[in-house]
C-alpha cells in the first residue's frame, strides 16, 4: 500500500467518522426544529437552547458524575426554553422569529454566566459503541466508535416520521401546522399543540447540546457551538420538513464539517479556515440550488411564518 493511497483512505475514513460524530447534534436539533415547524411555528432560539443544554448537561454530569443524568438535565433545560418560547408566542401580536432571536441570545448569555465554574472541571463522557472492533487499523477503529446518541437520534427520526403518519398526536400537529382554521374547526387548541411541540423541540435541542459538551468535542467552553442551532433551520428546509430526510441532511452537513479536521489529520493545513467553513458554504449552496422563483417550497407547513 503506497503512501498516497493511505492518505486518501485516511481522509475518507476520517470523514465518515467525522460525519457520524459531527452530525449527531445536527440530527437532534433539526428533529427538534422539524417537530416545532410542523406545528406551524419557527423557533430560532434553538441555538441558545443548544448552548444552554451543553452547559447544563456538562455541569450536571460533573456534579452527579453521570453523563446520562447530564443528558436528562439538558433535555429538561431545553424543555423549559421551549415552553417559554411557546408561552410567549401565545400572547397576541408576538412574532415567533423575534422571540426566537431574543431567546437565542438569552440562552447563550445564561449559559456563559452559569457555566463559568465548569470550564476547568472534567465531566464523564457519554459511552460509545466500538463498531470498528473488527479492524486492525486504528484510524478505522477510531472512525467507527459510534456514540449511543447517534443511534438514538436515528431511531428518533423514524419514530417521529411514524408519529406524523400513524398517530393522532402526529396528525394533530400536522393539522395545526397546515391550517389553524381547520384545526380550530375541529376543536383543537392550536396554541397548546404549538406550545407542546415547541417544548419537545427544545428538549431535543438540549440533548444535541449535551452531546457537544459530553462527547464531541467533549468539554464545556463558550465556543462550543458553531451555529448548529441556526443551521438546523436551513437543514430542515433542505430536508423538506421530513424527519427521515433530516438524517441525510445532518450526515451531509456532518461530513462537510469533518472535512477540515480530516484534511488536517493527513497534514494538509493549507486553506485551513476555508475547509472549516465548508458546512456554511454548503448551507448557502444547497439553499440556493434548491430554491425556485416560481414555486413555493414543497412540503412547507402552511402556517409557517417564513413561508406564508
Amino acid at each position, binding site marked *: 500500500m503506497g503512501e498516497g493511497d493511505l492518505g486518501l483512505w485516511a481522509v475518507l475514513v476520517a470523514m465518515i467518522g467525522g460525519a457520524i460524530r459531527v452530525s449527531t447534534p445536527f440530527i437532534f436539533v433539526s428533529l427538534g426544529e422539524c417537530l416545532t415547524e410542523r406545528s406551524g411555528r419557527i423557533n430560532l432560539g434553538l441555538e441558545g437552547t443548544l448552548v444552554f443544554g451543553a452547559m447544563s448537561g456538562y455541569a450536571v454530569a460533573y456534579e452527579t458524575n453521570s453523563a446520562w443524568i447530564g443528558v436528562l438535565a439538558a433535555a429538561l433545560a431545553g424543555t423549559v426554553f421551549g415552553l417559554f418560547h411557546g408561552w410567549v408566542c401565545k400572547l397576541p401580536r408576538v412574532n415567533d422569529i423575534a422571540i426566537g432571536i431574543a431567546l437565542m441570545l438569552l440562552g447563550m448569555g445564561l449559559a456563559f454566566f452559569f457555566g463559568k465554574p465548569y470550564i476547568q472541571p472534567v465531566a464523564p463522557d457519554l459511552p460509545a459503541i466500538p463498531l470498528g472492533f473488527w479492524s486492525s487499523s486504528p484510524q478505522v477503529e477510531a472512525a467507527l466508535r459510534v456514540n449511543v446518541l447517534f443511534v438514538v437520534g436515528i431511531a428518533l427520526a423514524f419514530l417521529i416520521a411514524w408519529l406524523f403518519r400513524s398517530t393522532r398526536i402526529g396528525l394533530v400537529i400536522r393539522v395545526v401546522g397546515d*391550517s389553524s382554521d381547520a384545526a380550530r374547526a*375541529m376543536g383543537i387548541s392550536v396554541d397548546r399543540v404549538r406550545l407542546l411541540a415547541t417544548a419537545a423541540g427544545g428538549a431535543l435541542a438540549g440533548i444535541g447540546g449535551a452531546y457537544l459538551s459530553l462527547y464531541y468535542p467533549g468539554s464545556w467552553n463558550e465556543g462550543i457551538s458553531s451555529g448548529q442551532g441556526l443551521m438546523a433551520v436551513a437543514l430542515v428546509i433542505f430536508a423538506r420538513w421530513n424527519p427521515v430526510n433530516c438524517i441525510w441532511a445532518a450526515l451531509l452537513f456532518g461530513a462537510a464539517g469533518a472535512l477540515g479536521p480530516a484534511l488536517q489529520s493527513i497534514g494538509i493545513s493549507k486553506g485551513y479556515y476555508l475547509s472549516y467553513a465548508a458546512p456554511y458554504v454548503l448551507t448557502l449552496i444547497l439553499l440556493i440550488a434548491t430554491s425556485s422563483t416560481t*414555486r413555493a417550497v414543497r412540503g412547507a407547513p402552511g402556517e409557517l411564518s417564513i413561508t406564508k
Partner: protein
Amino acid sequence: MSKGTAIGVETLHMTKRFGDFTALDDVSIKITPGSFHALLGENGAGKSTLVKCMMGFYQPTSGQMLINDREAEIRNPRDAHASGLGMVYQHFTLVPSLTAAENLVIARENAPAVIDWRKEREGLQAFLKTMPFSVALDQPVNRLAAGEKQKLELLKQLYLGRHFLILDEPTSVLTPSEADELLGMVRDLTQAGALTCLMITHKFREVTAFADVVSVLRRGAHVGGGKVSELSHDDMAAMMIGDKTLTRSADRSGEKGEAVLTLDGISASDRSGLKTIEVESLRVSAGEVVGIAGVSGNGQMELMEVLTGQRPVSRGRVNVKSEAFHGTRRQARDLKVRFLPEEPLQNASAGRMSVAENLAFRTFDLKKNGGLNGKSTRTWLDRAGMSRLAVELVDAFKVKTASIESPIASLSGGNVQRAVLARELSDEVDLLIIANPCFGLDFSAVAEIRARIMAARNAGAAVLLISEDLDEILELSDRVLVMSEGRIAYETPIATLDVGELGRHMAGHA
C-alpha cells in the same frame, strides 16, 4: 354510518342583534326531515347569521330552535355536531397537505391514539361503498380539484354521522358540471331520507334544479318562500331584491378593430412546476370581449401571470400592439393596459392603506402636467390631488365607504371590486385583462360590474376575460375560448356557441 335518518330543524322567532344592528329579525323557518331546502338572499341579508346561530357560532338574542320537534340548546358548534348538525363552508376546511383518508380520520371525535391504517382504510372503503360517490383516499387534498374537495367535505360530514347539513354556497368554486354532480348527490341522499340539507345560495338555477323548498331572507327578515315547483325565477328575484331595479349590461356597439393583444407560441411552467402551459396563438382585438372558460386549475391563473409578467416564459412572446410586453409599470401605462386580477383585495390592493391611496396607485408618482403618458415622475406626493381623485372616483363608481381615508380592507367585497375597477377604468383603456371579476359578489354588484366591463368594450377596449363562471362568460363574450390542461382546447364565436359542446371541452372529454 350513512344509514341514519334525516333530522328536521326549525327556528322559532330567531333574532340576533349586534349592538344597534339587527342582523336577524324574528326568523321562523321550518326545515322538514329529508328535504332539500334553499336559503336565498343577497349579501348581508342575514343568511350567514342565521346558520351561524343554528350551528352555535353565535347565540341568538332571542328565539329558539327545535331539533326533531324538541327544543334544543346549542351553545357551541360542538353541541351542534353532537346533535347531528354539520356545515360545509364556502371555503374549504380540509387540511391541504393531509391526504383524504387522514383528513377523514382526524376529523373524527374519537380518532384513535395510534392509527391502524389497514383497519381504517377498510372502514373507509366500506363507508365509501355506501355512498353514491367516491374520492381518491391517498391523494393529499391540495392536489384535488375544487369539485373533488367539495365532495370530500360532504363525505366528511356524512362520515362523521351528521344528518342535517348546512351548505354555504357549496358551488361557488365549482364548474357547472361539478356543481350539478355534487348537488345531484345531495338530492339523492335527501330523497333516500339519509340527510336533510339547507343550502345557502345566490344561484336560482341551482334552486330550481335541485331544491324542494326555498326560503328568502332580505335585510334579516324572512320575506317569503315556498315550494320551488310553485315559484318562478322572477318571483324569487322579486322577493330577494325587493323593488330595486338592476343595472343591465349595456348593449353591444362599435366595430371590432385591430388586434391589440397577441400571444405566439407561449410556453411556461405551471404552479406545481410539473406541467406546462402552452398557448399557441391568442388574439384579442379592440372592441371585443374574449372569454376564457375552463375548470379552475387548468392553467388560467398561470396564463394571467404570464400576461402580467409575473411568470417567466420559456418560449414565445406576448405582444401588445406589436410591442413585446413585459408587464412593467411604464409599459402598462404607455400601452394603456389594465389588469384586474381575481380577489382584488389581495391581488390588486394594499388592504391596510386607505381607499384614497389605493385609488392613486396608478398615478401617485406622476406629475400632473406630464399627464398619464408623461415621462416625468414626482418625488413628493400630492395628497390633495389624491384626495380629489378619490372623491371623484368613489362618486363615479358608487363605491360605498365610510370615508376615503378608511382602509380598503374594511370595504365589502363588491365595493373593493368597484374601487379597483374605478382605478383601472378611469382613463383611456386599450387592453383590459380581467380574472373572475364577480367572484363572491352579490346580485346587484355583479350586474353593475359587468355593465362597466361592457362599457369599456364598447368604448373600443380589447377585453380578455378569464372566468370560472360560465354564465358570466356567456353574457359578456364575443368569442369564447376553453382552456383545458394548460392549452386552448376550443374556440367559438358566441353566435354559434353550443353549451353542450363547450361543457365537453371544459371537462376535457372532446
